[in-house]
């Protein structure tokens, strides 16, 4: 069941088209990575989905509510963490959450219980009475996340939540997002670094210059973005002869040095790779290593952005 459906969303700022004709469907329970370089339109798209910014054209349905017709109902079914946001620094963590608890019109009798629960969820139970100004950046980010969880929304929109965090805080945040994903929340998380999302996201959409260039599961993304695997080999003997033998195979191309080794793109399957290796061994050229290059989805994504840009 689709929780988010965008219909040709478009947003202009003067002459600049920030988001152009984006059609996107996000299923309930998905952990959706929205990736793209800076200025790709991720924040604008998220703000439109959050019904904070009116589209110039098109619309979106969030949990069945139209962002143009019923923006206030849309607000009720999501939690949004902007890329840059303020906390009321002169309040304590508990006071901050108390304010938003009241603002969300939740049952006052359950206030303390709910605040304790979300603080525990984000690992800030011991900082309950700490003034916000004393919290580290990672803690502030987690307090912001606690705010989004207060009214138990089914959808979380997180705009670059790991931005500016040190590796330790990033890891903690990733663990937190994993646990939220396990609890069944639908999460849309944006980043310009795909690598840090790929191990816990189920789906991925790639934006570039306002346009959606890919949308699908992470597995589909790997297949779609990879466009053929690369193989690396270490040649002990005649490299030129090895190259000629490799490029005789119609599935192989783009032979090039890779440090002290060599690599080439290969579009055949594993059996074809085994056949090629046999040819090389039988021909007598010295091969001490032959393996699939461990390129990540991030490499493929960067390569794809390069293709898009040029």
């Amino acid at each position, binding site marked *: 069941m689709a929780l988010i459906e965008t219909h040709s969303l478009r947003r*202009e*700022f*003067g002459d600049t088209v920030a988001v152009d004709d984006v059609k996107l469907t996000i299923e309930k329970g998905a952990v959706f990575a929205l990736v793209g370089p800076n200025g790709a339109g991720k924040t604008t798209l998220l703000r439109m989905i*959050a*019904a*904070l910014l*009116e589209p*110039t*054209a098109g619309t979106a349905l969030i949990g069945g509510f139209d962002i*143009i017709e019923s*923006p*206030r109902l849309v*607000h*009720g079914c*999501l939690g*949004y963490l*902007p890329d*840059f*946001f*303020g*906390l*009321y620094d*002169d*309040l304590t963590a508990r*006071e901050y959450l*108390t*304010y*938003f608890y*009241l*603002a*969300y*019109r939740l049952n*006052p009798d359950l206030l303390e219980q709910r605040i304790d629960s979300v603080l525990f969820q984000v690992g800030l139970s011991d900082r309950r009475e700490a003034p916000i100004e004393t919290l580290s950046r990672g803690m502030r980010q987690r307090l912001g996340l606690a*705010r989004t969880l207060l009214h138990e929304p089914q959808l979380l929109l997180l705009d670059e939540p790991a931005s500016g965090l040190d590796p330790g805080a990033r890891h903690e945040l990733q663990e937190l997002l994993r646990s939220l994903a396990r609890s069944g929340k639908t999460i849309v998380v944006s980043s310009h670094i795909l690598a840090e999302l790929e191990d816990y996201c189920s789906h991925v959409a790639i934006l570039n210059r306002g346009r959606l260039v890919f949308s699908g599961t992470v597995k589909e993304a790997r297949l779609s973005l990879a466009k053929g695997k690369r193989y690396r080999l270490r040649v002990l003997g005649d490299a030129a002869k090895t190259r000629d033998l490799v490029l005789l195979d119609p599935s192989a191309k783009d032979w090039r040095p890779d440090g002290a080794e060599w690599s080439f793109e290969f579009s055949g399957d594993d059996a074809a790779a085994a056949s090629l290796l046999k040819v090389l061994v039988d021909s007598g050229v010295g091969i001490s290593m032959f393996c699939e290059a461990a390129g990540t989805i991030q490499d493929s994504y960067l390569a794809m952005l390069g293709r898009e840009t040029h």
Partner: protein
Amino acid sequence: MNAFTRRFPEIERYAMSEARPGRLVTAAVTSLVVGGCLYASTAASSSQDSGGALFGAAFWLQAMILLLYGTSRTTGSVLTERLEKTWDLQRLTPMSSWELSIGKLLGAPILAFYLAALFIPWAAAGLATSSTLPMREVMWDYLLLAGTTFFSLSLGLLVSSHGEGSVGGASAGTAGALMGAFGLSFLGSAMTSTGASKGGTLIPFFGRPCPLEFVILFSAVFFGAWALAGARWRLGRELLEPRRAWRLPAFILSLAAYERALGVPPFMTLIAPGVVMYFAGVLDGAAADRWKAWLAAPPRLWWDRMPSWIGGAAACVCAACVLATLDQGPQTQSSPATVRFYPLILCGFIIRDLAFLQLCRFSKSRSPEVMAMIFIGLAYALPSIVLGAAKASVLLYLFMPAPSESLPILANLAPGWLQAAGVCLLLKNRRG
């Protein structure tokens, strides 16, 4: 926390943030010291009525706290949220524009209210020991202070709600202090007038003689309520609530009615609403994409998305038509037709200017409003200078609402309305 602050969580937040026990105790001790100094100085003065002097000192101290500090707090309220990037988070909550407006109006100056309340005992002591202060005058003083405070705080909130995120905290503070100073001078002149009249001055209001104090109080509450409604309208627009397009037209009509109630002649009545329209046109910020979205909107969203200046201009035209039917009185020696239809002539030029302002928003200028205002200023100044120098002032009616009495009324009406129609036609085609 109580039912009221649960209804308006903003008040609870401001209370948690600003009314901390340490701060409250410090403020109480400070007020004791200041009040003691006031008492000592008034007791030691040569004044015959030291109680009255103490009351006056405490009263004006309260007025300064409420109007200067309180107004600067409401002026900073929304601006600070934008600056600190907390505004979007508030927009996501179910709080309505009404709850946010009241929350900020009463919450942001919460410390000012507390400080002012601390001086009530000193004012009461002055009143109790005064031999000359009439209770009626004291009551009116406080009513005027309450009315002026409401007006000033609402005005601060109105400015704050229309401010952009790029406005710095210092600018907000300056704007707040200026508005507070305006409120203070308004209160001063109101109290001077009412004090001089000693309750005996009656002025015609809606055709009936009314005490001056009442008219001033009514005016403060009337404009305060409209300022609050304007702030709420703007906050509601950002919350993507239905836009209540009737609000600006209603204000324009009620302002015209208010002027008429004070006896302003019909032909001059539309000048103040016209000035308001320029402010509204600039502040509305109906950018080019909003204009295009309005033109492209389906009929059910047409009213909701309409730039507010169009509704205001329509209200001006309605008011002008009504004013043209009224008895113009003996205030002028000009030709009766020119005087009668002057509001309609004025409307043509107002609509031309506002449509031109909208057209400028399609330019590449980063400040289209400033550019438009400069051009509009030149559109009035240049003909005056050139035609004045050429001794052809009789042609001024072509460029500004300065009707020529020797011409028929249609000839006087035509220039403004034709120019307005021309600019509106250009705008109509701006569909993107």
